[in-house]
C-alpha cells in the first residue's frame, strides 16, 4: 500500500516554515500567497492553479449547503492486533487524534448539496495518511446505509495512501465491506458520486472510490493502485511524465471528469440533481 508517501511528507497542505504566518507558499510555482486569499481560493494557487491538499472541514464547507451539515462520524479506532512497529499503533493513533482533533481519518454527516439530500463523507489525509482501517470502513458502510434508509445521495471525497497496515487483514476486509454497502444504494436508485483528490491510492481506489456512478478527480491528483515508488522498484525504470495523475486517469477512461476545485461543487450538484430520482429539473441550479 502506498502509505510510503505519508512518511516522506507529513504536512497535509502547503506552507513551509520559512515564510511568515500570514503568508503561504505555492508548492508548485513557489508564489507567495496571502493565506486568507489562498483559503478563499479553496487552496488553489491563484498564480498557477496548483491544487493543494485541503483540510477535511474546509471540504465539507465547500460542498455542503451552508448550515445543513450534521456530523455523524464518531466511531473510535481500536488496536485489535496490538500492533507495534517502531512505535505502538495505539500511540500513533493518539498522536493523530491530537493533531487532527478527529477520532480517525474520516469526517462525515448528513447535509444538502445543491438542495439534494446527501450523506457526505470526507477522508482526512492528515490522519495516518487517510488510511482505511476498521473505522473508515465502518463509517463508509454506515454512511451508505443511512443514505439508503433516508433517501439521500452518497458523496465521498477520497484522500488516502491506502489501507491501514496496522489493522492488517481487518483493514483489507474494509474493501469488501465498503463495496458491498454500495448495493443498498442500487436497490433504491440513489446516486453515488466520488471525488478523487491528491492522493488516492491502494485499497481505497481499489474499492468504493472506483465504483461511483460519476467519478470526479481534481487536477494533478495522484490516483492509482500501487504507489509510484513500488512501481519504480518493480519495473526499474523512471515513470512516464504525468503517470497516475488525474489527467492520465481521464485519458485512460477511469474517471468521468477532471474538475477544477473552484467549479467542483457546481458539477457535483449537476450530477446529483440529475441522478437523484427525487429531484426535478430546475434550470441553472
Amino acid at each position, binding site marked *: 500500500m502506498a502509505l510510503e508517501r505519508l*512518511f516522506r511528507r507529513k504536512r497535509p497542505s502547503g506552507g513551509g516554515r520559512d515564510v511568515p504566518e500570514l503568508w503561504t507558499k505555492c508548492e508548485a510555482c513557489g508564489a507567495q500567497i496571502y493565506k486568507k486569499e489562498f483559503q478563499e481560493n479553496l487552496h488553489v494557487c491563484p498564480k498557477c492553479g496548483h491544487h493543494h491538499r485541503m483540510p477535511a472541514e474546509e471540504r465539507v464547507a465547500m460542498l455542503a449547503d451552508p448550515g445543513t451539515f450534521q456530523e455523524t462520524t464518531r466511531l473510535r479506532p481500536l488496536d485489535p492486533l496490538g500492533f507495534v512497529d517502531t512505535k505502538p499503533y495505539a500511540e500513533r493513533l493518539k498522536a493523530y487524534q491530537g493533531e487532527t482533533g478527529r477520532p480517525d481519518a474520516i469526517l462525515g454527516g448528513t447535509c444538502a448539496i445543491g438542495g439534494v439530500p446527501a450523506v457526505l463523507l470526507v477522508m482526512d489525509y492528515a490522519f495516518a495518511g487517510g488510511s482505511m482501517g476498521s473505522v473508515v470502513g465502518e463509517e463508509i458502510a454506515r454512511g451508505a446505509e443511512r443514505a439508503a434508509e433516508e433517501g439521500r445521495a452518497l458523496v465521498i471525497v477520497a484522500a488516502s495512501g491506502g489501507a491501514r497496515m496496522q489493522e492488517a487483514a*481487518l483493514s483489507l476486509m474494509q474493501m469488501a465491506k465498503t*463495496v458491498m454497502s454500495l448495493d443498498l444504494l442500487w436497490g433504491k436508485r440513489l446516486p453515488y458520486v466520488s471525488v478523487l483528490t491528491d492522493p488516492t491510492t*491502494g485499497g481505497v481506489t481499489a474499492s468504493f472510490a472506483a465504483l461511483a456512478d460519476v467519478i470526479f478527480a481534481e487536477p494533478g491528483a495522484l490516483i492509482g493502485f500501487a504507489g509510484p515508488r513500488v512501481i519504480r522498484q*518493480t519495473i526499474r525504470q523512471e*515513470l512516464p511524465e504525468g503517470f497516475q495523475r488525474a489527467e492520465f486517469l481521464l485519458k485512460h477512461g477511469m474517471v468521468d471528469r477532471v474538475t477544477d476545485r473552484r467549479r467542483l461543487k457546481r458539477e457535483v450538484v449537476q450530477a446529483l440533481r440529475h441522478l437523484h430520482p427525487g429531484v426535478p429539473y430546475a434550470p441553472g441550479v
Partner: protein
Amino acid sequence: MPLEFEKPILELERRIQELKETAKATGVDLQAEIRLLEERLAQLKKETYGNLTPWQRVQLARAQGRPTTLDVLEKAFQDFLELHGDRAFADDPAIVGGLAYLEGEKVVVVGHQKGRDTKENLQRNFGMPHPEGYRKAMRLMDLADRFGYPFLTFVDTPGAYPGVSAEERGQAWVIAQSIQRMSRLRVPAVTVILGEGGSGGALAIAVANRVLILENAWYSVISPESCAAILWRDAKEAPKAAEALKLTAKDLLAQKVVDAVIPEPEGGAHKDPDRAIQNLKEALLKTLEELKGLSPEALYQDRYRRFRRLGAYAEP
C-alpha cells in the same frame, strides 16, 4: 532449495541416510544408531514444525512444490476444462479458471496461478495478475451465476501486479469491480487461500460465503517485506512485520477473516501435496454441503453479513 530453518532437519536426514548406506555396503549392524537418530529427527521435526514462527510459515507458503491452483484442479476435481480470456484485451496466465466437477457436482473455478518452475513463473508473472486476469475471473463469475453452479476460488498471489501497464489498464478499478461482482453472486462461493493471500489482488477473488485457508498460508493487506520496508524502513525486518501483521491461519481465524483452517502435512503442503489436496477437498465438500440449503438471495445476504461484521472499532 531448503528453507533456512529446515537445515538442521535436512542435515539429520542426510546423516541417517548415510548410516543406512554404510550399513548396507559394509554389512555392519547400525540399527540401534539409526533408530536413535530417527527418534531425534522426529523430535526435531515436532519442535520445528510445531512451533513455526509467522515468518517461517510465510516461507512455507511460498515453498517450491506447494500445490498450485492447477495442481488442485487436477487432483481434487474431475474433467477441468480451462477457459481463457477476458473478451477485451488479453488472456492473463496469472489467473486460471474454467469448468470442473467436484465429486460429480458442477462447479466453476478460478484461481491465481504461480509457475511450478522458473520458466513457468516468468510466464505466469509469479502469480501477479494484470487487470485482464480479474476480468477473466469476472466473466467466470457471470458464467457461474448464469448457470447456477457454485463458484470456487483459490488464492495464491503476492499481490496484483504493480506495473505501469497494469495501472494504465485500471488495476484499482478492476479489483473494485471484481470485489463487487463476486459479492453479488447468487450461487455458493467458497475461497481457499492456498499459499499467499497478498492484499487487494487476493481479495478480488475472495469475497466468498466461506473463506478457508491452508495451515501455513498467509493473508494480509501487505506482504511482510513491504510492510517492513515502510514501517521499519528496512525490508529485512520482514520477520518482525510477519509477526505484527497477525497473518497466519490461526490469527486470521481468531479475527474471523477466515472461517476454517485446512491442516497440512508435517513440514508443509509441499512435503505431501496429495495429502494436502485431499484435506482441502474434504474441507471444500463439507463447506459446500453447509451452503446447500440456501436460496440465491440467502446466499447473497449471507455473504453480505459475513463481510459486514468484520472490523474492530469502538462506539463513542
